[in-house]
C-alpha cells in the first residue's frame, strides 16, 4: 500500500488537471489554483526540514572542527541572525512587518543584494573564458558558430552599425545589425523552436509515465 496510495493520488490529480483544461465549469475552473495553493502549503512545511538539515550539517562540521568549518560558522550565523531579526521584527514600527522595513530591509539591501549582484557579475568574466575556450574553428560547424558569435558580439555594440554603415543599399542585408537580426530571427529561432517542440514532447512523455505509474522511481524504496 505504501506505493499504491501515492500512485493513486498521482493518477487522480494528474487526470483531473488534464480534464480541467477542457471543462469551463465550476469547480474545474478553480482546480489549478487550489492545487497550486495546496502545493505551496506543503512546500512551506517542508521548509522546516531544509532549515533543520542546514543547521545540523553545518553544526556537525563546527563541532568536529572539520575542514572548512569556518564557512559553516558563517552560514549558521547568517541563518540564525536573519531568522531572529525577522521573527522578533527588530527595527519595525507598528504591528506588522513589510518586506521593506526594519533591519531585515537593511540586511537585504546592504548584504544580500550586493552579494547576489557580485555573483551575477561573475558571469561577465566566465563568458570571456568560456568563449576563449569554446570558439575554435575545429570543423565546419564550429567555424559557422565562431562566425555567428563574432557577428552577434559586434552587433550588440554601436561598432556593429558603424563598421558596415558604408555598405550600399543593395548590400544592406550584409550590414552587421541586419545580419544579426536575421541570425536571431531565422536560424536561431528555428533551432529554438525545434528544441522547444522536443522539450514539450519530452514533458508530455515524462508526465504521462509519472501519471500512469510507469515511472515510479520518485517514490523511493518500499
Amino acid at each position, binding site marked *: 500500500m505504501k506505493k499504491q496510495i501515492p500512485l493513486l493520488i498521482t493518477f487522480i490529480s494528474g487526470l483531473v488537471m488534464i480534464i480541467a483544461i477542457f471543462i469551463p465549469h465550476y469547480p474545474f475552473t478553480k482546480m*489549478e*489554483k487550489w492545487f*497550486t495553493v495546496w502545493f505551496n502549503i506543503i512546500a512551506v512545511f517542508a521548509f522546516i526540514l531544509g532549515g533543520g538539515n542546514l543547521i545540523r550539517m553545518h553544526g556537525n562540521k563546527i563541532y568536529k572542527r572539520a575542514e572548512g568549518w569556518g564557512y559553516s560558522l558563517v552560514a549558521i550565523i547568517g541563518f540564525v541572525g536573519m531568522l531572529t531579526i525577522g521573527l522578533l521584527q527588530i527595527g519595525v*514600527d*507598528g*504591528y*506588522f512587518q*513589510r*518586506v*521593506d*522595513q526594519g533591519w531585515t530591509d537593511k540586511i537585504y*539591501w546592504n548584504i544580500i*543584494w550586493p552579494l*547576489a*549582484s557580485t555573483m*551575477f557579475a561573475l558571469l*561577465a*568574466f566566465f*563568458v*570571456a*573564458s568560456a*568563449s*576563449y*575556450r569554446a*570558439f*575554435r*574553428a*575545429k570543423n565546419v560547424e564550429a567555424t559557422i558558430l*565562431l562566425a555567428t*558569435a*563574432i557577428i552577434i*558580439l*559586434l552587433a*550588440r*555594440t*554601436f*561598432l556593429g*552599425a*558603424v563598421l558596415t554603415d558604408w555598405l550600399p543599399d543593395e548590400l544592406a542585408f550584409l550590414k552587421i*545589425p541586419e545580419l544579426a*537580426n536575421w541570425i*536571431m*530571427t531565422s536560424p*536561431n*529561432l528555428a533551432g*529554438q*523552436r525545434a528544441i*522547444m517542440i522536443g522539450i514539450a514532447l519530452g514533458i508530455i512523455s515524462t508526465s504521462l509515465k509519472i501519471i500512469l505509474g510507469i515511472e515510479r522511481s520518485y517514490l523511493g524504496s518500499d
Partner: protein
Amino acid sequence: MNKYKLKNWLTKLNMIDRRIIFLFIAIAVIIPTIFPGGCKEYPTEMSANIYNKIETLPSGSRVLMSLDYDPASAPELQPMTNALLRHLCMKKHKIYLMTLWQTAPSIIRRAEGLIKTEFPEMKEEIDYVNLGFKGGLQGVINAILTDIYQMYSTDNKGDNLKDPKFEVMKGVNNLGDMDLIISVSTGTPGLKEWIQFGGDMVKKPTCGGSTAVATPLLFPYYPQQMFGILGGIKGAAEYEQLLIDGHKDRLDKILKTKPIQIDKEIAKLEKEISTIDNEIKNTGIGNIKRKSVFEANKKHLEDLKAEPVDEDMYKQAIMRMGPQTVAHLVIIIFIIIGNITFFIIRRMEKNK
C-alpha cells in the same frame, strides 16, 4: 626563436590562464566606467516599434506596466524601465504600475519616484496608480483578465480603488480595458506569461523588455503576439537614443526641474507622515501601512537627491554600452588569438 620554443609559447597562449582573461575583462569594464563616453546608438526595428507605438497612441491611453524583476537585475533593466516611463509620461498616457514579483516593490517605488520628480504634472490617482505586488504568479494575470478588482481592491497605500478620487480607474474593469501592455521582466513570471495569458487572450498590443540572455526565447512571439522587445542594455540604449532624438528639449527641461521637485516631494511626504503621526498621537489610531509607504518613498527620494542630475541621467544605458563594447572587443580579440594559435599549432604538428 626556434620552432620548439615558438610551439611552446603558442601552446601556453592557447591554454592561457583564465585569470589573465579575467584581468583583461576587468580592465575593459573598469576603464570605460571611470572614463565614460557613450556613442550614438542605431535603433533596430524592435525598439523602433515600441517607440512608435507609444508615440502614436492617443494621449491619455491606458498603459499597464508590469515591472517583473528583482533588484539584482535592476542594473540591466532599470534604464529601459526609466526610458519607457519617461516616454509614457511625456505622451501623458495613463500608467498602471504593478508587479508579479515579491522582491519588486522597491522597483515600483523607483518608478513612482521618477514620475513624481520628473513629471510633476502627472498626478497620482488621476494619471497613474501603483497597484503594487500580488502573489499568485501568472494567476494574477488570469484574474485581472476578467475583473481587476478581484485582485486589486486597494492601491499600494491601501486606498480603495473604487473611491471616486481614483479617476485613473474610471472605466477600467479588466485587462481588456488597457490600450497597451508592457512588461519589463527577467524570468518567470514575466513577459512570456503576459503574452500567453494576458495580451494574446484579450488581443491587446503587448511589448516589453528583457535581459539579454532571455530575449532570444521571446522571439517566437514576434511580431504577432508581441510587437517589440528591448533586449538588455543594448535595447535600452537604443530606446534612450530614440528618446533623445525625439524629445531632447523635454529631457533637458527635466534636468533643470528635477532637483527642485525632489525637495518638494520630500517636503510633501514629511507633511503626510507628520499628519499620520499626529493622528496616532491624538486618537491612538492611524494608517500605519500608509505611513510606512510614505517613509519608504521618502527614503528613496533622499537617496535620489544624492545622485547627480545631468545628461547622464537619461543616458544610463548609452553610458553602459561603453564597457559592453570594450568587453565584447576584448572577447573577440581573445577568440581571434585563440584561433590563430590553434591553427599554427595544428599546422606545425601536421608538418612534423
